[in-house]
């Protein structure tokens, strides 16, 4: 309700990224010197009153001349409310027209552009501003105005990384990466630095929650996996993670509104959860069914335990191919470990052999034990894409720098892989250090406990994915 400047129709446009939707509020404030002519342009029948039909027609003009683009694709603006003052007040320069609308804003969105193309017959100025919504999944990280104020482009990021709110003294790695995408690279060295920054970003990102680390930990600890397994699992997670970013990014860019990331991502989460849950249940079943038979070999296991350590290290460094069909022949310790003395049908048996005798993955007959099962776990761990990596790809595509974006994601993934593999290796080495003989030891209980952890993780992922999927579905129904 500010009627200045007096000789212009002022349009104040408020753009608010909220949960699932972009809110747009257009306030039209005609200055006193032009208010009469403006009011007459709305009062099309000239009866000095604004009928429902006249205001509806004006609102439709506003909607039709406005444009919303989310990550480069056009989104419809749905009018949710429109308030018009009485004609006399509007004509005197004391009234404000306020029209509000929303457009879909998927949680993975990284940029919105709103354009106000409404041109009444009077001189007009447009001020577009971004306001913050409580509980929004996205916050503005950068704001650009264009077309003499008629358009506004807002880069979006999860609230925690919003530079506008957090205002860090120095830009973070992610901000540098995003900024570098927008600026031409000065030299090949700049490209190397950029890729190094991305790799570092990936390394740091691997330490944040997620990325299958808990699953990786539970599995490797329980199976007392080999270093090769740790490497394999880490790489599968990383490759899957990278591929999911590329595929989802491509889907968003190419299929536009038909593929909503906020529906697709929960679907992936649900699928990953089910994979982990099913594999976890199978591993539990097999470890439980063989637990009783292991008791019969308790003494043998205890007696042989020292050998296991010794041979495990010796083997990995000096005898990578010296295994028999079941891994016992080469070293002559058929009952050398409580978890390794039952070569038939044990879900994690293949890994136990691998622990001692190299890459036995894929040689086991039991379900969930082979390289395929390990790969499935790795895939489930990497299936959910990082918003950061997805953002880099979408922004790169939007700036016609897709190749650079892919290179940055590859570097990001390399950093991610390095950390995951390193952690896996530490885990494998450390697990051996704490092994102790005896049926009541942690080592003896670890396989079943870790399998149970995998099941719980799978259950949590499945329930969470289902909940998010339901939420996204409900949201999609509301905003369409």
């Amino acid at each position: 309700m500010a009627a200045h400047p007096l000789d212009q129709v002022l349009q104040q446009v408020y753009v608010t990224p909220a949960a699932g939707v972009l809110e747009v509020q257009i306030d039209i404030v005609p200055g006193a010197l032009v208010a009469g002519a403006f009011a007459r342009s709305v009062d099309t029948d000239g009866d000095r009153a604004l009928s429902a039909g006249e205001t509806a027609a004006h609102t439709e003009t506003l909607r039709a001349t406005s444009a919303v683009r989310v990550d480069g694709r056009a989104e419809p603006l749905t009018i949710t409310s429109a308030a018009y003052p009485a004609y006399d007040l509007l004509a005197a320069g004391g009234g404000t027209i306020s029209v509000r609308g929303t457009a879909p804003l998927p949680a993975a969105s990284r940029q919105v552009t709103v354009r106000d193309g409404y041109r009444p017959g009077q001189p007009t100025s447009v001020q577009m501003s971004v306001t913050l919504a409580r509980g929004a999944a996205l916050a503005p990280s950068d704001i650009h105005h264009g077309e003499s104020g008629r358009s506004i482009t807002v880069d979006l990021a999860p609230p925690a990384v919003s530079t506008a709110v957090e205002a860090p003294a120095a830009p973070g790695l992610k901000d540098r990466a995003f900024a570098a995408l927008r600026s031409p690279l000065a030299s090949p060295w700049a490209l190397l630095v950029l890729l190094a920054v991305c790799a570092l970003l990936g390394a740091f990102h691997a330490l944040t929650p997620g990325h299958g680390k808990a699953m990786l930990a539970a599995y490797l600890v329980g199976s007392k996996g080999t270093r090769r397994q740790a490497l394999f699992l880490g790489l599968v997670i990383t490759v899957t993670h990278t591929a999911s970013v590329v595929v989802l990014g491509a889907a968003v860019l190419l299929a536009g509104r038909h593929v909503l990331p906020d529906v697709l991502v929960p679907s992936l989460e649900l699928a990953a959860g089910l994979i982990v849950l099913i594999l976890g249940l199978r591993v539990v079943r097999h470890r439980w069914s063989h637990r009783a038979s292991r008791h019969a070999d308790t003494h043998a296991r205890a007696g042989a335990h020292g050998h296991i350590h010794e041979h495990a290290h010796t083997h990995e460094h000096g005898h990578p191919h010296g295994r028999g069909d079941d891994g016992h022949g080469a070293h002559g310790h058929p009952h050398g470990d409580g978890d390794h003395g039952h070569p038939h049908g044990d879900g994690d048996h293949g890994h136990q052999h691998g622990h001692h005798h190299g890459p036995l993955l894929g040689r086991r007959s039991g379900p969930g034990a082979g390289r395929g099962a390990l790969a499935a776990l790795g895939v489930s761990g990497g299936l959910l894409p990082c918003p950061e990596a997805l953002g880099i790809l979408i922004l790169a595509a939007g700036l016609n720098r897709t190749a650079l974006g892919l290179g940055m994601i590859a570097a990001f993934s390399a950093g991610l892989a390095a950390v995951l593999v390193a952690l896996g290796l530490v885990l494998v080495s450390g697990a051996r250090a704490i092994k102790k003989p005896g049926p009541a030891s942690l080592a003896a209980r670890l396989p079943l406990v870790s399998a149970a952890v995998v099941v719980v993780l799978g259950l949590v992922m499945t329930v969470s994915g289902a909940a998010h999927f339901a939420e996204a579905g409900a949201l999609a129904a509301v905003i369409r």
Partner: protein
Amino acid sequence: MPASHVRRLLYAGAVSLLLLPAGCGSDSDDEAGESSTATASASASATATSSATGATAAVLSAANAFLATLDDTQKTTVQGERTTANLAQWSNLPDQLFERAGLRMDKLSGEQQAAVLAILKAGLSTDGYNQVAGITTADGVLASTATMNLDFGADHYWIRILGTPSATDIWTVQYGGHHLAVNLTMKGDEMTLAPTLWGAQPASYTESSKTVEPLSGETKAAFALVDSLDATQLKAAVLDTAVTEIVLGAGQDGKTLAQEGVQASTFTSEQKTLLQALLSQWITPLVTSESSAKLTAAMTSANLAKTTFGWYGSTTIGNPIYYRVQGPGFTIEFAHQQGQGANAGGVTHIHSIYREPDNDYGASL
């Protein structure tokens, strides 16, 4: 330390990292952090609230004294419920274009007018009170010279009390009219002046052979700060499109602007001093005993790290400008009215607003 112990420690560390909660890049930690901060802040505020003392007690006393001068009809007219709609019923517009509520000064007796001004004196600093007087006097100057008078003037200002004046409960005094909307909210011994609209037209005039400039401090301090910026800072400060009117004026309660402009964290100590001088112009119109803590809080390094300064227009004083200062505890906007025609005025016509995100009308008191 034995090697086996080192390995166990390493292992324990790795497991701790690996067993972090699932969720790719989850923000939950940060959100929880913010929530905790907010909760702690609210809790601290709640425990700090007590009965009116000092300035709030003085405002309470002055308000009761004013009410005592009114007849029953006037009391009913001047008092209202502290509803969202009532709190938002203010504007920069003159009376012909905006319907206000309460009692207008020109309808009050001299004693009653003095009692109203006593409320303002109790809640405002000397500079704050003089600013109110300078703005209302300017409106009288405008009324005497304007070719288009839309029912404004030096005594066309309204007093309204929302909520029951209390030593413990929240209540608000509104005083406003054309180019002025003071919202003074009290709860216990705490007080806020947000939101308050400060306008001026003419922004400079002569009264008793003295030049009066109601918002000259807010103008000069801003030019001093922008003049101190280096090229990089200035580039960051200048908004990329024209802004000619305040964005969060009347009718825009509850909105929080995304920040734009140069980060105060990049300021030198000299620039921070200039920023403090500018913020002082906006925060210290509130009575000193209440505003000093706000100004101190605004200048902590933690809050400066989240403070920005945006600018549009020439950096040479005397030219029309728009500027914005945003921090965790305040949003400030200042706009010269740059249109053409009657009453436009450029540098002689100012609209500005002081808000406190999350604490307008004492929402956090």
